[in-house]
C-alpha cells in the first residue's frame, strides 16, 4: 500500500478539519491503524510532544509523533510486517513534565509482573484459540505445595499441575517451570495445558510451577537453586507422584533469566533432565572485552554463558528454543543454536515477530510442549 493512500494521509489532505471530524476518524479506524504492513499510532491531546515507546529492535525507540496542523491529533506511521505483535506505551511531554501510559485509544492490553502495555497486532497475527478457556477441555488441577529446602534455606512454595483424569496407576512426565507463578498468571499456562492435553497435542503431564524469591540472584547459575531443583524438588515429587523415572521424561523450562536458570541447572546436573524449553533465554555473552551492555545484573549470566561457550557440554538430549525477532536477545539466541547443536544436542529453534514478553512466550507454548511432550494424537483414531 502506498504511503499516499494511508487513512492518516487522506485525513491530512482534508485539513483543516474540526474536532468532530477527528472524532469520526478515530471512531472509524481505531488505533493503531493497521493498513497492510503499516501501523499508524495516534494520540489526541494538548501536549508539547508525544512519542511511542517500545523495544522493537530495528525501529527508533522512542518514535516521535507529529501533530496534524491545527488539530489535537498526533500520529506516526511505521512499518509492521505481517504477523507482528508489538507491545508499546505512549510518552507525552508537557513543559518539563513527562508521562508514560498505555494508549488510551487502544483497549488491547497485555499484562506482566512489571505492569501492563498496549498491544499492536499486525495483519496476520491472531491470538491462538488454544489460549482461551475451552469448556470442552476437562480441567487439570492446581495443587499448592511447599517444600522445606535445605539448599535455599527456606520454605519453597510450588504449584503442581495434575492433568485431567490424573490416575495414580499411570505415570507422567514432569515439567519444572521457572517463574512458575508468572507463567500461570501472564501466559495462561494452566488453560493452555488443559487445552493442549485435551486436543491430544501434548501428553498428559505433571508440571511444577516454581516461583523465585530473589530472581536476579537465584536464576543466573546459582548453585543452591540448581541443588534445590535437582536434589530436592525432583526426588520429593518422584516420591509423592507417579512420575516416569527417566531423564527423557523430565524437562526444565524458563524464559529470560528463567532460561538461564534452566540451562545452568542442567549443566550442573547433567543427565538428570532430558530436555530444556528455553524462551528468550538471557544467553548474553561477550566475544571480546567485558562490555556486554546488560548492566550488573547480567554479570553472572555473561560469566556463565562465556564459560559454557568455551567448553560446551550436552547436559540434555533436546532443547526447544524460542525468541522474538524484535528483542535484543535475538542475536545471542541465534548464536547459541549452533553451539548447542555442536555439543551434540537436538535443537528446535523458532522465532516470532514479537518481543520479550509473556504473550510471545504464551503463543510459543504449543510448539514447544508438543515437541517435547508429544500428545497421543498419532494413536487416536476415533
Amino acid at each position, binding site marked *: 500500500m502506498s504511503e499516499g493512500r494511508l487513512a492518516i494521509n487522506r485525513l491530512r489532505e482534508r485539513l483543516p478539519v474540526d474536532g468532530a471530524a477527528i472524532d469520526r476518524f478515530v471512531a472509524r479506524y481505531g488505533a493503531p491503524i493497521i493498513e497492510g504492513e503499516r501501523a499508524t499510532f495516534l494520540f489526541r491531546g494538548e501536549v508539547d510532544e508525544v512519542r511511542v515507546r517500545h523495544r522493537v529492535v530495528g525501529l527508533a525507540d522512542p518514535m516521535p509523533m507529529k501533530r496534524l496542523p491545527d488539530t489535537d491529533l498526533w500520529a506516526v506511521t511505521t512499518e509492521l510486517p505481517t504477523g507482528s505483535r508489538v507491545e508499546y506505551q505512549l510518552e507525552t511531554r508537557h513543559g518539563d513534565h513527562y508521562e508514560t501510559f498505555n494508549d488510551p485509544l487502544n483497549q488491547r492490553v497485555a499484562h506482566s509482573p512489571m505492569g501492563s502495555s498496549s498491544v499492536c497486532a499486525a495483519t496476520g497475527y491472531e491470538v491462538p484459540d488454544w489460549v482461551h478457556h475451552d469448556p470442552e477441555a476437562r480441567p487439570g488441577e492446581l495443587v499448592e505445595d511447599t517444600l522445606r529446602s535445605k539448599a535455599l534455606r527456606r520454605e519453597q512454595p510450588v504449584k503442581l499441575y495434575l492433568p485431567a483424569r490424573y490416575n495414580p496407576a499411570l505415570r507422567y512426565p514432569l515439567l519444572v517451570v521457572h517463574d512458575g507463578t508468572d507463567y500461570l498468571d501472564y501466559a495462561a499456562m494452566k488453560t493452555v495445558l488443559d487445552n493442549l492435553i485435551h486436543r491430544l497435542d501434548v501428553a498428559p503431564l505433571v508440571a511444577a510451577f516454581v516461583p523465585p524469591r530473589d530472581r536476579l540472584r537465584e536464576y543466573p547459575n546459582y548453585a543452591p537453586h540448581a541443588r534445590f531443583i535437582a536434589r530436592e524438588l525432583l526426588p520429593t515429587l518422584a516420591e509423592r507422584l507417579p512420575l516416569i523415572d527417566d531423564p527423557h521424561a523430565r524437562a526444565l523450562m524458563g524464559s529470560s533469566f528463567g532460561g538461564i536458570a534452566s540451562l545452568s541447572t542442567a549443566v550442573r546436573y547433567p543427565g538428570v533432565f532430558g530436555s530444556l524449553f528455553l524462551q528468550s533465554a538471557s544467553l548474553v555473552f561477550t566475544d571480546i572485552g567485558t562490555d556486554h551492555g546488560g548492566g550488573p545484573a547480567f554479570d553472572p549470566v555473561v560469566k556463565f554463558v562465556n564459560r559454557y561457550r568455551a567448553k560446551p557440554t550436552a547436559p540434555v538430549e533436546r532443547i526447544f528454543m524460542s525468541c522474538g525477532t524484535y528483542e535484543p536477545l535475538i542475536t545471542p539466541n541465534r548464536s547459541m543454536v549452533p553451539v548447542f547443536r555442536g555439543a551434540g544436542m537436538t535443537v528446535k529453534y523458532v522465532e516470532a515477530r514479537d518481543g520479550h514478553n509473556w504473550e510471545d512466550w504464551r503463543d510459543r507454548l504449543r510448539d514447544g510442549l508438543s515437541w517435547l511432550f508429544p500428545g497421543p494424537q498419532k494413536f487416536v483414531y*476415533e
Partner: protein
Amino acid sequence: MRTVLLGPQRFMTTAGTALRSLGVDGPVATINAGWEEREDVVDELDTVLGGDTRHLRLYHRSLDVITKDEVFGAAALAFRDRHDALLSLYRLRLQNAMDGVYAVQRRTREAEGRARGEATAYSALDDSIEVVRHVDQWYAAQLKSLYAELDAASPIDASSVIGWHRGELADLLGQAAAVVLTGGHVGTLLRTLRLFAIRIPDEVPVVAWSAGAMALTERVVLFHDHGPEGNTEAEVFDRGLRRVRGLVALPHARRRLRLDDRDRCAVMARRFTDQHCVLLDDGTALELTADGGLPLGARILGIDGAIHELGAPNGSHGANGRGAVS
C-alpha cells in the same frame, strides 16, 4: 469369516447399517477400550447397534488388573517405560532413514530428466526404502523381546485376577453373535486385547472402524501428517489380531495424511509394498471377500503416490495386489 471395515463414525454413522447387513441374530459384543475412561459412555453406541449389546469393558478391567495384581502392575509399568524408550530410539532411526529416502527421491526425480544415471538413482531409492524396512523390522524384533520379558516377569497364567477376567470375557464372547470394535486410542486397544488374550472366532462376524479396524490387521501403522509438531513419519507400532491380512489400515486418511503430496504417499506405499495401504475415510464400508481379500472399489495408495480403486481400469490388482498400480 465375515468382516466389515468402516471409516470413522464421528460424522457419518454407518455401523448400524453394516451390522444389519451381516444378518446378525443375537447379542453383539463391543470392544471400545480405545475410548479409555469414556468406555462406559455407550448410550449412543447402543442406539446405533440396536441395543442388544454386551460391553466387554477391557479398559476398566485392565485398570482393575493393575490395581489388584501388584506384580503384573509393576511389570506392565516397567514394560511401558522400556517400550517408550524403544519407540524413542525407533523414531530417531526412522527419521534419519526417511530423510535419506526423501533425499534420494529428489535426486531420482532430477535423474528422470537425464537418461544417464536413471537406473542407479532408482536402485538407490529402492535400497534406501529397504533401509527403512530394516529399521521397522528391527523395532518389531525388539518389541517382541520386550513382550517376552514382560511375560517372563509376570506370567499372565499365574495371575488370578487376569484369569478371572479372561474367564468372564470368554463367556461373554462365547454368547456373542457378532463383535464390534470401535475407534479410539489404538495403543490402549491393542494392550487390552493382548492382556485378556481376546480371540474372535472366525465364524463370528466383526464390524470395526478406525482404531478397531487397525487392531484387526497384522501390522498397525501410526500416522499423522498434520500434528502440531509438523510432519512425522508413519511408524509401525505393533501387531494386531491378524484377522485381516495383507493390508495397512489408514483411517481418516484424508484428514491425517498429505494425500496431495504424491512423493510422500509413494514412499509410504513402497515401504509397505507387501500390503495394501487402504484408505478408510468417512462413509467407507468394506466387507472383505470370503478369502479375506479387499473388495473391488477399495481405495488404496499406489506406489505412484496416487489413490487407486481396486478393480478400476488403472487400479486392478495383480498377484500381490500391486502389479498394475504404478
